[in-house]
């Protein structure tokens, strides 16, 4: 039952705030504090902070602060404000009612107990409901974890599915899972003979919970890693994205990054994610992890080996700006190895696609694109420079030089421009420099 603290009005007219008694809101009786022990003193401010209410009745809101009132007081005009706010208003020297703009004929402020009572009970109700729901959730989580310790087969899959739902819907559930040692339990379900159904649900849960270092290091065992990589290759889009996220979480464990980066199954799985145009989320997830892995030198050669270069180049025209930046960043890393440069040169659309991106999206994209073009042209100057110029590189480079981007970039552009101009006579080259279309 919601309890409410009432200041006591004693016979002698004094209002004492220290002797409090409880008002039972349901039965509207006053219970003396000494007779009944409070179950809990719920502070209004705490409740307001903890509850994230969207539809607060407008009469509860103070017109000055637009926040729910903690201590509503009414002026002689009949308007109610939060005490702290109206006192501040008065202290600034105003003697008017803020909403009606009338001059106050009476400077008394009357505590609006009725309104306070209403606000308190409204919040209490919701607060207790939420507490109960959260306890239910906690209870359910505990039950599910108990089931998981013993269940096999379909029961296990069902329990995991439900746990996943509960954890996604309630923040408190996550805490319960951690407290009840659920994380290591779930992690122990992953092994060389784990079925895909169990594994995908387990990973979906683990990804949403903060993992401690013990769990993280156990997840980097080879058998579990193989399972995660397999699921990344075979799962639904959601499973694939969860696997990439989990690997990203684990990537900082000792040596894990370079070890898992050398897994060709993982790299080809990520590439498959990136290739699938139907799912932009998948592409973004795949590119994200691929970029992290490509920061390791030995991984770069492997990635080129599985044909990533042409795939990445082909997705450039249609990618959104985040994916574009990631893809270009990866290509730039790949262009630092000889095999990568060869692959870039061999791909017929790399030069046109890259030229189109100059000065189109952002400075960083232009920087990456320029760097890659530089690498290609350096490899085979005559052939590639010609192609680049035909694709309109010269005009773009001039734009870069004239733009407000950083000096290093301008320098690079100038050098590249010089490289391209080597095979042309002055007049022909100048004609190539003319922009044929305005740049949006």
């Amino acid at each position, binding site marked *: 039952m919601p309890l409410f603290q009432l200041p006591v009005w004693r016979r002698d007219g004094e209002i004492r705030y220290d002797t409090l008694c409880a008002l039972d809101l349901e039965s509207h009786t006053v219970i003396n504090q000494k007779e009944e022990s409070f179950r809990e003193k719920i502070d209004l401010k705490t409740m307001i902070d903890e509850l994230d209410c969207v539809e607060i009745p407008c009469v509860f809101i103070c017109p000055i602060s637009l926040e729910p009132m903690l201590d509503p007081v009414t002026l002689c005009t009949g308007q109610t404000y939060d005490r702290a706010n109206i006192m501040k208003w008065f202290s600034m020297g105003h003697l008017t009612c803020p909403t009606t703009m009338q001059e106050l004929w009476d400077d008394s402020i009357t505590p609006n107990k009725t309104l306070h009572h209403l606000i308190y009970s409204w919040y209490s109700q919701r607060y207790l409901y939420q507490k109960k729901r959260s306890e239910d959730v906690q209870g359910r989580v505990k039950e599910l974890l108990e089931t998981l310790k013993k269940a096999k087969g379909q029961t296990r899959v069902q329990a995991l599915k439900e746990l996943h739902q509960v954890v996604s819907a309630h923040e408190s559930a996550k805490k319960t899972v951690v407290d009840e040692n659920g994380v290591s339990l779930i992690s122990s379900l992953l092994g*060389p*003979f784990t*079925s895909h159904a169990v594994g995908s649900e387990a990973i979906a849960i683990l990804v949403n919970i903060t993992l401690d270092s013990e769990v993280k290091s156990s997840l980097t065992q*080879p058998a579990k890693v193989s399972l995660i990589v397999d699921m990344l290759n*075979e799962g639904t889009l959601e499973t694939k994205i969860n696997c990439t996220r989990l690997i990203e979480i684990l990537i900082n464990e000792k040596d894990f990054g370079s070890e898992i980066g050398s897994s060709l199954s993982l790299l080809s799985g990520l590439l498959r994610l990136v290739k699938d145009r139907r799912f932009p989320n998948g592409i973004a997830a795949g590119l994200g992890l691929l970029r992290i892995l490509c920061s390791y030198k030995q991984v770069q050669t492997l990635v080129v080996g599985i044909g990533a270069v042409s795939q990445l180049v082909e997705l450039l025209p249609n990618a959104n700006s985040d994916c574009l930046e990631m893809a270009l960043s990866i290509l730039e890393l790949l262009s630092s190895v000889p095999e990568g440069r060869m692959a870039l040169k061999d791909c017929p659309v790399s030069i046109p696609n890259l030229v189109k991106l100059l000065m189109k999206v952002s400075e960083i994209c232009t920087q990456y694109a320029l760097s890659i073009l530089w690498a290609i042209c350096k490899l085979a100057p005559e052939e590639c420079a010609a192609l680049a110029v035909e694709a309109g590189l010269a005009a773009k480079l001039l734009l870069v030089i004239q733009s407000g981007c950083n000096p290093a970039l301008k320098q690079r552009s100038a050098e590249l421009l010089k490289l391209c101009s080597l095979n042309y006579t002055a007049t022909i080259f100048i004609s190539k420099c003319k922009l044929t279309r305005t740049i949006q």
Partner: protein
Amino acid sequence: MLSILIENMGLLCSRQRPLTEADAKEKSQAAEIERRIAQESKIEKHIHKLLLLGAGESGKSTIFKQIKLLFQTGFDEAELMSYISVIHANVYQTIKLLYDGSKEFAQNEEGSSKYVISPDNQDIGEKFSQIGDRFDYPRLSKELAQEIETLWKDDAIQETYARANELQVPECTHYFMENLHRLSDTNYIPTKEDVLYSRVRTTGVVEIQFSPVGDSRKSGEVYRLFDVGGQKNERRKWIHLFEGVTAVIFCAAISEYDQTLFEDENKNRMMETRELFDWVLKQPCFEKTSFLLFLNKFDIFEKKVTKVPLNVCEWFKDYQPIATGKQEIEHAYEFVKKKFEELYFQSTTPDRVDRVFKIYRTTALDQKLVKKTFKLVDETLRRRNLIEAGLL
């Protein structure tokens, strides 16, 4: 004559002949055959064909037998009895190999007497060497079994057995030698384990059809598993099977990195497996086939890898041990697995990269393990099916 000619003119080319009863019957029969063909093709589409491939003695037939035991009615008494001759033959072949081997080693290592058989046992040895040469072996009697056991316990034979990787001694040796008394009993009926250990070279093609039970009972998936011969000289027999298989189960015995081929004693078995795997991956008919690699004989690998370093095999020459004991075994296994993975990606062109490729660690003699492994295989293939049908 002219009238006959006129009467018959046009009868050859004309279609409008009145249907005789025989014609009608033929037509209905043809229709029936067509319908049956259509029906069976429809059924065939739902049967997933699995092809067991691998080098000789990689464990294909053992997996085959395990599937039979797990998902069919197993072996009945008559079938079990039919294996007696095979098991006895294995015993004779093995003891002959060991005896001949000991003589060879004794000859090559002048001065060392460790391979010299003790004089009492030499007659026994000669006797079995001759028996082993024959085509038909005598039934293993108690007396013969006793003699074999005496010979087996001879120090020279044990020394020879320690170098078994240089000879073509099959892996069932130890198991059968330990069980000689049971095998020679007059009322001997082979156990399932005996059958699994027995070794006979598969010639031709064997197939079984089965449905995996358990959670997937309702789905009614049907598999047809084909087992083929593994030795080099039998590979041409496989070719006509390659069309339309759902998955290839490739068995590679990872314990044989220090052994040579039966057909060619100069060739290392692991290198042979590597070449075969490479060849199979590149076959055009396997463009869309799922590949399930069974790294088999892990139990023997476990025991061997701490004693015989992996680098004796050329493919694994860059192996560096980092630890000891169980950790080292795991490390060695991961190394071998990675080598096979690299090989797969090297032999796979970009257009084929979408096919399913999974690696499983197996010990074909362990029934529980094979059952668990097959459950995973079943799940993978069913998911693949759903993905291809666009339902996932």
